[in-house]
């Protein structure tokens, strides 16, 4: 196991590479998630606003 972690003396470089790869993947997962949440929040707010306007018109 420690041999595996040691990576023949290249541990820092190898693990840093994989960590960076993971980081990039994480950022690219987080980004669309955040954008999606933001857009849905906006859209529902707009829709509610519209409905309120319609209600106030009819009443």
């Amino acid at each position, binding site marked *: 196991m420690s041999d*595996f972690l040691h990576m*023949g003396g290249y541990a820092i470089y190898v693990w840093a590479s994989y960590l960076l790869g993971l980081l990039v993947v994480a950022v690219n997962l987080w980004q669309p998630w955040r*954008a999606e949440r933001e857009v849905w929040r906006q859209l529902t707010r707009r829709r509610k606003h519209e409905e309120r306007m319609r209600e106030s018109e009819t009443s």
Partner: protein
Amino acid sequence: MWAWLHRQGSPKRFYNWSGTLARWAGWGSLLLGVAGLYYALFASPPDYQQGESVRIMYVHVPAAWLSMFIYMNIAAASLVSLVWRIKVADMFAAASAPIGAWFTFLALATGSLWGKPMWGTWWIWDARLTSELILLFLYLGYIGLLAAIEERETAARAAAVLALVGVVNIPIIHYSVEWWSTLHQGATVTKFDKPSIDWTMLRPLLLMAFSATLFYVAVALRLARTELLRRERESQWVRELIDGRQGGGRR
């Protein structure tokens, strides 16, 4: 055929099929990625010259591949959006750009991490890394232009022109950098690619590359869908979508 494609490019249709495709691509990417990581870290031998550091290659090469592949995708989508006026295409192009920039960055960083033990310095003006660096600038320029123009559709069309100019220039840049590095470097440093590569190393490489490609497809589609919703928020189908979602209570 064209009529069919054009129909699939209509906002509502695109929204429907892209969701499914993104989900499948996402799961596929995860599956291939896990398998790829297993072979990359456990079930492949160290290189006889580079030792264990060869494992960096399984991150670097897919990232470098994706950086090129995504730029080509942006250019192709830009062409489609300029010629056939399919709005969805420019949203896909715009969504691809940040992903491409991130993977270009990853390719550069891992190239540097591989270079330190191999060459003894963090950075060397090797043809491949230099090309990658210029590619990063092309991406940043594209993203910068897209962000600078306020009118969304104008921005998309301007960026599309830039992407096409860029894609014509990439081979020229690549060739010039290649020529320049052979002129100044003399003895060639060991490169990643060798004429023949063993199956045990090729297997994780291919798995990781496919996984990365699917990952890109999934993320780009999701970003494009989000942008689509934002732009089409006044249309009837988006309204219905919101109502359905609120009624369904998914969140």
